[in-house]
């Protein structure tokens, strides 16, 4: 077809439109670029660094970098997989991720991307930080031990719910999620079960109540097929399949 713009992703031509990022075009073409903080429904954030790809030899985040005619993009390489694995390991050790005791397990995108990269162990020293659980809301619990600061809830609340209830506060290792309410508690905020922000968390940090362990082991989203085949957890959260 004449006039169609393309770039090359791991040797395959990918069509794109003006204004597309590499991630936009790849998603449309059904090509998987590992990611955690990206959800096409919200403004790209570029913070988790899992979607780093090489464009003509230079590393960029696929979710924020514009697609360009004729450029060569490497997504699938041993070096990028190793780098992604290390980033994932850092996310695991800086929080408290005890998967056997987490109700998100089996349908958690952090876990799924880690499986995808073949992560067997955590090469770093665990921080075991002391973080709290906010169980003040009747419809949702926030377990800060598992928050990976992806800002998906922040963006959902700002861009879709128009409530602006969440934000990241602090710097560096002290960064943490805060809630806009007089007490800082979710229960005293305007958060509602119908909010988009309730269903976008890729990990077991924002958990809807009353649905825990409804899906038997073996039938959970990532039990049988990897994330590159079944996609993000956010879409699944909103369906009735679970």
């Amino acid at each position: 077809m004449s006039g169609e713009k393309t770039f090359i992703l791991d040797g395959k031509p990918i069509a794109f439109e003006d204004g597309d990022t590499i991630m936009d075009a790849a998603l449309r073409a059904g090509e998987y670029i590992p990611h955690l903080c990206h959800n096409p429904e919200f403004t790209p954030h570029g913070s988790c660094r899992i979607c780093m790809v090489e464009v003509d030899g230079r590393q960029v985040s696929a979710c924020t970098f514009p697609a360009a005619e004729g450029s060569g993009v490497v997504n699938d390489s041993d070096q990028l997989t190793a780098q992604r694995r290390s980033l994932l390991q850092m996310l695991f050790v800086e929080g408290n991720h005890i998967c056997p005791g987490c109700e998100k397990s089996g349908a958690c995108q952090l876990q799924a991307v880690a499986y995808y990269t073949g992560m067997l162990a955590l090469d770093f020293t665990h921080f075991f930080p002391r973080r709290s659980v906010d169980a003040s809301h009747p419809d949702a619990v926030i377990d800060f031990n598992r928050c990976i600061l992806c800002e998906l809830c922040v963006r959902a609340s700002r861009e879709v719910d128009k409530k602006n209830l969440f934000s990241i506060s602090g710097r560096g290792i002290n960064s943490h999620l805060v809630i806009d309410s007089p007490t800082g508690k979710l229960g005293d905020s305007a958060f509602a079960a119908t909010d988009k922000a309730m269903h976008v968390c890729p990990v077991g940090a924002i958990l809807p109540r009353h649905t825990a362990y409804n899906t038997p082991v073996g039938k959970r989203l990532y039990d049988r097929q990897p994330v590159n085949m079944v996609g993000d957890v956010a879409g699944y959260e909103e369906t009735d399949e679970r």
Partner: protein
Amino acid sequence: MTEKLKLATASLCGCFGCHMSLLDIDERILELVQLVEFDRSPFTDIKKIGHCDIGIIEGGVANAENVEVLREFRAHCKVLIAFGACAINGGIPAMRNQFELKECLEESYVDGIGVYNRMIPDDPEIPMLLNKVHPIHEVVQIDHFLPGCPPSGDAIWTFLTGLIEGRPVSLPYGQIRYD
């Protein structure tokens, strides 16, 4: 005939689930004992470890005895494996790392519901607890890791046969699990 490899196993701060899962390889255990000879292990009840080719450690490090056993395994095994979630990241027992050790002991032995004869046990035979539960790679060098709570019988079989035959192990999807 080549000599059988020697295999030792131990459970530190774990629930024994990983050892149970090792038995979950079912009749393949007959094949396994053609290839390896069990040295110190809860399966043999041998208490002292000899020189071994492979050491398998279930559980994290939570007390002084765990440290001792782990160091002994490292000194006696050519290849040491962190087996299961607790060995790899402390697992469920590491949830106590959110609290002071004193708080945990008081909750269990003094303030807990239905506790009588309220006192924190201090018999010298009881190993001293560490302030935190640690993954084993924070204490000794580990050569291989097999995640899972517990790793499934199939994952264990894929892993062990690969290791014994000396080829690179690649676990199919579904055999890498953290829960």
